């Protein structure tokens, strides 16, 4: 591989010029990439930050394509932009949209360390850049249609033949990291401490570990109303107090009480609008409706 590289570099001298189109594209995409990187650092919102980084990655991918490395360019877009940044976004969205940057420092000496490391990295980069600009000759134009010219086949040969061992080592590292993450994050829901299954929960309910074996009754759905504000009726026609919601504004207890008082005073037959059964149907003294109404109202008050 070494000899090949030097050979390629030796050939370079002749046509190491940059075409106009490439130069124009570079001067458009380069600033966009740098701007994206800077905005990524300075954006307050984490999701905005991620999006600026996406912009940088996209323009890098396009730069690769311009330099006759379409495989590398598309891989950059698919892997980094499409998969890795999407996972980042996924996590950021889970965290919540209000979680902007906090200026509170939790790690001691973080700024100092960051400054030292940042200057160090900048120095390394600057050194490499100056060397690249001064000493290394530009690579010749490549032909991505052939394996020798930077096509996928040539890349495959480099990865899977010349540099097979480092490649496998890297993949082993990645797999170890993935397995480690799964081991650390995995909770066994079948163990005693883990979550109870649906069946366990049902049995626990019937053993009396919970308030009641069944879920609370839903709101009533009748021919005249399907609003969640309409309470459910019990078989005897009285209101099921558990079906009244504290949250729904349209059923304040007072409003309900007034309605029911009005209904109780009007001695009518079965009425689908009535929230109680036929008035005094099975009662001896005729005040049954009032008592049930009072009881239910009391229940709602208790809930409220």
């Amino acid at each position, binding site marked *: 591989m070494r000899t090949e590289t030097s050979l390629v570099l030796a050939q370079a001298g002749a046509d190491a010029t940059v075409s106009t189109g490439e130069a124009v594209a570079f001067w458009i995409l380069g600033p966009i990439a740098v701007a994206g990187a800077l905005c990524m650092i300075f954006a307050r*919102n984490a*999701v*905005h930050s991620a*999006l600026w980084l*996406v912009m940088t990655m*996209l323009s890098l991918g396009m730069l690769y394509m311009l330099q006759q490395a*379409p*495989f590398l360019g*598309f*891989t950059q*877009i*698919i892997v980094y*932009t*499409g*998969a890795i940044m*999407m*996972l980042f*976004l*996924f996590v950021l*969205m*889970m965290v919540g*949209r209000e979680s902007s940057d906090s200026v509170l420092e939790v790690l001691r000496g973080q700024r100092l360390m960051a400054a030292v490391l940042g200057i160090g990295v900048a120095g390394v980069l600057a050194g490499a850049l100056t060397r690249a600009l001064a000493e290394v000759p530009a690579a010749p134009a490549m032909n*991505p*249609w*052939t*394996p020798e010219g930077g*096509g*996928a*086949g040539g890349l*495959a*040969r480099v990865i899977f033949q010349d540099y097979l061992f480092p490649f496998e080592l890297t993949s082993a590292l990645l797999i170890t990291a993935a397995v480690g993450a799964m081991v650390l994050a995995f909770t066994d829901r079948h163990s005693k401490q883990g979550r109870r299954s649906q069946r366990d929960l*049902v*049995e626990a309910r*019937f*053993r009396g570990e919970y308030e009641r074996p069944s879920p609370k009754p839903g709101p009533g759905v009748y021919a005249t109303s399907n609003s969640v504000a309409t309470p459910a009726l019990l078989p005897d026609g009285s209101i099921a107090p558990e079906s009244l919601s504290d949250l729904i504004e349209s059923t304040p207890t007072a409003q309900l009480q007034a309605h029911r008082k009005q209904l109780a005073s009007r001695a009518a037959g079965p009425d689908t609008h009535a929230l109680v059964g036929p008035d005094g149907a099975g009662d001896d003294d005729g005040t049954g409706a009032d008592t049930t109404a009072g009881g239910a109202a009391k229940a709602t008050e208790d809930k409220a």
Partner: protein
Amino acid sequence: MSPFLAQAATEPINRAELLADDPLWLILLKAVVVMLIGPIFTVVLIVGERKTVGRMQNRPGPNRVGPFGMLQSLADAIKLPFKEQVIPDTADRKIYFLAPVIAVVPALIGLAAIPFGGEVTIFGERTVLQLIELPVSVLLVLAGASIGVYGIVLGGWASGSPYPLLGGLRSAAQVISYEIAMGLSIIGVVLYSQSMATSGIVAAQADGGWYFYLLLPSFVIYIISMVGETNRAPFDLPEAESELVGGFHTEYSSMKFAMFFLAEYSNMVIVSAFATTLFLGGGMFPFFGADAAINQGWWPALWFLAKMCVILFGFIWLRGTLPRFRYDQFMKLGWKVLVPAALVWLLLIATVRALRNASDVSTGQILIIGGVAIVVVVLLMLLIPEKEIPEDEGHVSTTGGGHPVPPLDLKVPETTPRRRALEAKRRSEEKQQAELSPQAAGAPGEGSKEGESHGDL
């Protein structure tokens, strides 16, 4: 390695050279046509889908605007931009505006790499029915799909309300999962055709047979993951209306909603065109060979569109037939069925390829070795003991099983109130009799004793 790319290197370069010679006006013309294919198909597909699904459900579908309701989606397309747009207070406005654009643009770019046909002459200029020719144009389509998801995810997030956020999250997870299966199925095609250029794949199919039967597992995996990738029923979980109202586009209205619609249908067109290219021989008409008159000039474009429409009809058919998957089932299908199956199949293709390239192994030998390997694997599988279901003897179910079972701690009373009452009544009667005739009390007692002794005898 050289046989791997030798084939790919000769054929597409001619196409690439032909494309490189295109004058600017021709490139612009082609770009406009390629960009218009998406929106035109969207307009046609929407009304077609509504009519077809309507017929499948025994109703006529839209039938008011134009002849047979054909102009319904035109009317919708005119109406939508003029509707009021409602922007939620909690929305992140910049991204809220950006999201539909991000969704649409990749969907319009994707068709650029699809070879709709062979060599034609447009206004005296020889060219190919394809906008760009890249050595890796297969990846262009994948990259477009992976960028397009950003539109959905960001739209869901920027709306600033819970249902769209859930839709966006689902979409992110869904597309990442199904892109893996899709990529693996495409790798099968690339390995077999030894080319990553779409036109090279079509040419390889013209020579060696279409891949939908040669690489059937790849085709099936691609078809399933393509439905998942485009968020279509039965995998339309990001916009499941029974769970998430409208999913990621709940808070979108007016033109921005229309753009999401456009993106969805354009994506359908792209994946269908891609499936045609990869598995159905592109613009080839079967049985006649590439040199027949029916496969020359503009005809291939027609065959291509026909094949694409068949797949698009499949999309609609699926929607009219299948219920929506549950989310966990959907993820299980992707990660535990499609990805492992694709990996195993890929290993098989790669092995066969490597043996073929070794060239001193005949097909018969490959088949024999493969058969022996399969038999060995099956025999080994038989050796694995069956999983024992642990049976809990002392376990009594309190529910289920169809029978009402009494509670575990039910106390069965020794006696019932009625029996107690009867007992008390009997005792009081006996007492009364004893009080009334103390002498006679002995006689019946003796009599009964005699009766008993009689009975004994």
